[in-house]
């Protein structure tokens, strides 16, 4: 009964059932990534840091909601909430991004992944989607808590709820922008090293060292330099996009008429980081 190419047939039964394709692999990687972002299915030790950050962010939202219900005014609205939490978001991606990609490099399982019908693009897509979802949940859930308070304490009935919802949805979109930018940069840094410790330090270094550059560029004597200063740091870049899209002037960053440049750079930054990440895993996948 043996086929031509088989040397020994020792009688094991072949797997005849349906084989799940790339989509199932992608879905499994995504679910696993999202679960490990919050340490689900892992020991209590690995839950401390992600849940600690999530707890603080939620606590701030609850305090904010409490203030709103008492004095009828936000301490900070949906946008400012994301801005205020920037240090904690940096810390969160510094915890989670190495967890998602550096562990795989460290334990040498990438060749096993890529011996399946999985492609480099699928792997990158699953990891990026998992981290984007995790960061978005980190900001989006507290925003939703704030929305619930706003909706329940509204004085104008259904109209007030709709108005509040109209504020929440762009706020969620803004959180998504945060998630995309922070995810693409942190995953790129984390994919360079298999040591989680170095990856976490590198991610924080990238975000922290670019922040003072904005302040320095703003002190230069050139008007154009003031307006373009925000391009130097991812955090200021996101703020700049908000200023451009919402015509805000009170956020401490003056972007002049360069709003579209901020939008273009945000898009290019995300695209460039993702392409570099893809190139990195193309190399691994072809080994």
């Amino acid at each position, binding site marked *: 009964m043996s086929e031509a190419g088989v040397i020994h047939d020792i009688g094991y039964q072949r797997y005849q059932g349906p084989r799940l394709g790339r989509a199932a692999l992608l879905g499994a990687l995504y679910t696993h990534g999202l679960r490990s972002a919050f340490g689900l299915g892992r*020991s209590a030790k690995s839950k401390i840091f992600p849940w600690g950050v999530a707890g603080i962010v939620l606590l701030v939202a609850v305090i904010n909601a409490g203030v709103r219900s008492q004095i009828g005014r936000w301490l900070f609205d949906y946008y400012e909430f994301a801005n205020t939490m920037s240090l904690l978001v940096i*810390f969160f991606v510094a915890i989670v991004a190495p967890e998602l990609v550096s562990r795989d490099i460290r334990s040498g399982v990438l060749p096993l992944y890529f011996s399946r019908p999985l492609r480099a693009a699928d792997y990158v897509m699953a990891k990026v989607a998992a981290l984007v979802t995790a960061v978005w949940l980190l900001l989006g859930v507290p925003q939703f808590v704030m929305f619930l308070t706003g909706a329940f304490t509204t004085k104008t009935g259904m109209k007030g709820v709709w108005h509040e919802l109209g504020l929440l949805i762009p706020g969620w979109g803004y959180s998504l922008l945060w998630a995309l930018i922070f995810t693409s940069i942190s995953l790129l840094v984390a994919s360079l090293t298999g*040591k989680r*410790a170095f990856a976490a330090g590198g991610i924080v*270094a990238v975000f922290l060292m670019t922040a*003072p550059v904005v*302040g*320095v560029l703003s002190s230069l004597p050139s008007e154009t330099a003031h307006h373009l200063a925000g391009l130097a740091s991812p955090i200021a870049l996101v703020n700049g996009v908000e200023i451009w899209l919402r015509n805000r002037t009170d956020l401490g960053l003056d972007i002049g008429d360069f709003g579209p440049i901020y939008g273009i750079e945000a898009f290019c930054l995300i695209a460039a980081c993702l392409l570099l990440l893809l190139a990195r895993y193309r190399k691994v996948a072809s080994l």
Partner: protein
Amino acid sequence: MSTVAYITARGLFGRRRVLLLLPLPLLLAGLALLCHAYGVDPNQWGQAVIVGLGFAVVLPVTSLIVGTGVLGSEVDDGTIIHILTKPLPRRDIILAKLLVAAGVSAVVSAVPLFVTGVLADNVHFGLALAVAAVVGAVAYSALFLLLSLLTRRPVLLGLVYILVWEGLLGRFVSGTRVLSIEQYVIAIADKIAPTDILPGKVNLTVAIVMSAIFAIGGTIYAINRLGSFSMAGETS
């Protein structure tokens, strides 16, 4: 002891890893040069570059990566057992590692800070910044070396210290300044060369005594911990 130091240094620098430490100091000195070239008043850019970038980011982050790297990465790989089984006093191992960590962090942060100080004011100010950076590097290295013996996730705990304790709380809650190495460093630099650029908020005596406590206490406790160190299995 010199062999331990040599191996540690090679672990830090080997295979072009030294290049990873370059961008931070280069950015610091580059920004100072840029501002100097444009002729901006040092009182405007000094605080952002020296405190905001130098003392708040370059010094602690370099010390964190190097300080937890010298021992933590060996604990992680399990190669620490090769050193521990040699007939060497644990004290010597810690001292050699601390020497390398503090030396590397001091050079990486003090040199660009010296350049920045010279550009901002004069050589005296540059030297003050460099001396303060060396003190800070020793204190931070001892702290982070100790952390890498106390926990399996030293970098994350160190980041909590830098980001939350010194970054967030140090800015708003004045009481936390007494336990913040960043504030000691600023106070020491400000005392050696008083300028309007540095906001020294801690008493000099407190700064010196507390830096010494961090450095010496951290080292002694680290020696103590390594003395009773046990190889643990893979966790989390």
